[in-house]
């Protein structure tokens, strides 16, 4: 039986082990690094990509994507299908 209130399952541990949060975390870091690199592009880099600031826009895109995934995980947390399946130590 799933919990009547899904928000109750939204513990820190369950969020951290949600694959959507892990994906979001990776892309937050990628996005930040790229956006910072793209904030001050060298002329050489710009020439390489035909004048398009690829680091900046990819970085911003990744941040938006990460926000969407984190939001999804936050709003629709994983509800354990059966409480008995949860190991006692799993919440640590």
């Amino acid at each position, binding site marked *: 039986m799933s919990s009547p209130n899904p928000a109750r399952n939204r513990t820190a541990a369950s969020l951290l*082990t949600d*694959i959507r949060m*892990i*994906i979001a*975390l*990776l*892309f937050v*870091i*990628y996005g930040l*690094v*790229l956006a910072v*690199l*793209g904030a001050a*592009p*060298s002329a*050489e*880099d*710009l020439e*390489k*990509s*035909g*004048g*398009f600031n*690829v*680091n900046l*826009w*990819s*970085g911003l*895109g*990744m941040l938006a*994507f990460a926000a969407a995934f984190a939001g999804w995980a936050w709003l629709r947390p994983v509800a354990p*299908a059966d409480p008995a399946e949860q*190991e006692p130590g*799993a919440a640590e």
Partner: protein
Amino acid sequence: MHVLAQDQLRLDAAGVDYALLALYFVFVLGVGFMARRSVSDSLDFFLSGRSLPAWVTGIAFVAANLGAIEIIGMSANGAKYGMPTMHYFWIGAVPAMLFLALVMMPFYYGSKVRSVPEFMLFRFGRPAHLVNGISFAAAQILIAGVNLFLLASIVNVLLGWPLWVSLLVAAAIVLTYTALGGLSAAIYNEVLQFFVIVAALLPLTYVGLHKVGGWDGLVQKVSASPGGAEQLSAWPGNELTGFGDSFLSVLGIVFGLGFVLAFGYWTTNFVEVQRAMASKSMSAAQRTPIIGAFPKLLIPFVVVIPGMIAGVSVSEMVALKAGESPGVDYNDAMLLLMRDLLPNGILGVALAGLLASFMAGMAANLSAFNTVFTYDIWQSYVVKDRPDRYYLKMGPWVTVGATAGAVGTAFIASGYENLMDYLQQLFSFFNAPLFATFILGMFWKRMTPTAGWVGLVLGTASAVVVFLLSEAGVIALSGQGASFVGAGAAFVVDIAVSVVISLMTRPKPDEQLVGLVYSLTPKESLKASSTGEDAGWYRKPWLLAGIVLAITVVMNIVFG
């Protein structure tokens, strides 16, 4: 495999690129540790406890196939042939994925088998089970070796590490996360990999289009390039099939690639089917390949199009298309485009995406091998009737053994000149007859156990004969044409032999075939539930499949 030209392909990776790449590997291993905490019995390890949501298994379903062959091979095809390459995705995958979802998945998931060979056991008995189990396990080790070799040779070229060091490091990483978390780790990592691959290829495609002057610029340049405007339309694809006649070419694509090869690959290949079996309900299992079909429709735009861009903008590729020999081949198209277009930073993400895709293929082979070896060979024929704990404990050791085997076959693979063709041939040997046996066995209750294994053996044998004849030059066909014909022969021989033998031998009694044969299975048990977590129109398998099919038709019209 050819030796890549070292200096041309060495990317200008800087510290930040390596850092981004390393971060990715930290995440991959982290997912392995995370998945480990949820493993408590052998079903957890081998089939993820049948608990994963459909979007996860659906993405894993495509990602398991989005390996080196897909990224490198299809961008190479894009550079060489252009739009006809789209057939590998649209005709050559989507209809088969939908067929798996709607027609075959109810039997796979509904009968609660743990693997494709186990379905053979229930339907046809032990000889067919053993034939299928052993041939599948052997094929997985061979293919894992090829994937590992490709992975290592890319690391070798890009980063300059010696081949054997790259090989061992790559093997160690894949081994660590699969051994730790079993199928869950492999599947979760496939999902992560999928997004990193897209994050790498999408900017590459965009920058590429930007540089050649947008879509119109690409059309102009491709039309003017050797090969001409024919490269811009998917049909009839004469260059791809090698048939001079357009009608035969279309026929070859639809029946050879679209029916026998694709259906054989997608519906019986346990590497793929396993991902659907790991989902949490019949409805989710059916949705897995359908959800996978959406990205499958779109992936060619970030794989084939960059290949085409490389074909008209990378100097070495342009020279190659003009018939010169610049020391690279079409397989290098994607790497050369990355070298030309991507500045440091995004280059690191692209490297992570490439390596991710190559590891995905190998991890998928390993996890499928694990399940089949443990359940279908070890537990069925070698050490029977031990407690579940025993087989769970075995899991990681089987992975170690399989990885060692793959390192061995990778060294064998490094000695082959034309690895891709050889691999495609392998698929036609095993998958085409398997598909024939499955489809006949699922819909014809009269088919007997003897027919099951004899059909498989003779079907495979006839594909091998076609292969040998074309190798010896008796049948004059290109590599692709030969594997179309071989798969067709295997399919026809398997069906014919199975029918004849079935009529001569005794079938299994009806009551043993409930849930395995269409006419003997209550229609209710083949239906997915549509309540609770499976409720909602957007979760109805037939409706979703209809949407996918409609998009496929539209794409074929637009890019036809």
